């Protein structure tokens, strides 16, 4: 399902929430030149005027996608980074804290 950038992000958040206890989310990104049809065997395909970035995400049996154009890149990128930070929460925390904790433990 092709979505607008904003609704893609909110749907993606929902995907992360839904897979908290089971399953996984996968996100694909790739460059897209705006053509949906295969290259014609004869003659040249029309030259792409602008490249975009295509995002696909799937979790369980739901699939969503969105296309980010150049003018929206900054906005999307920031929102996407925040989303990732907020949702990749099952990962182990950094070692720095552990090192500090062990130092403290040693000192006392």
């Amino acid at each position, binding site marked *: 399902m092709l979505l607008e950038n904003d609704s893609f992000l909110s749907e993606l958040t929902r995907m992360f929430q839904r897979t908290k206890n089971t399953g996984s989310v*996968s996100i*694909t990104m790739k*460059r897209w030149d705006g053509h949906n049809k295969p290259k014609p065997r004869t003659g040249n395909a029309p030259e792409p005027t602008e490249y975009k*970035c295509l995002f696909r995400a799937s979790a369980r049996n739901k699939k969503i996608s969105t296309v980010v154009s150049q003018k929206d890149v900054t906005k999307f*990128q920031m929102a996407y980074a925040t989303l990732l930070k907020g949702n990749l929460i*099952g990962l182990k925390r950094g070692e720095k804290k552990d090192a500090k904790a062990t130092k403290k433990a040693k000192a006392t």
Partner: protein
Amino acid sequence: MTYIKSWDEFAKAVERVYVNNPLKCRFVMKYRNVDGLLTMKITDDHVCLQYKTEHNQDVKKLEKLLGHLIRDMASKEK
């Protein structure tokens, strides 16, 4: 299908694969909250390189890499 051990090496490889064939290459990441595992893959159907992590500190590095990648993909340059 090899996993690269170091992040820096993977990041360089991503740039290399992308530059080599911008329209064919795709970047996939898969996150499993249950196992706390994040797997990343870059491939252009000839080369396939992967990286996996369990650590939170890699998310920051990933963000930086993704930022570059999005910008490159959605630009007018070839």
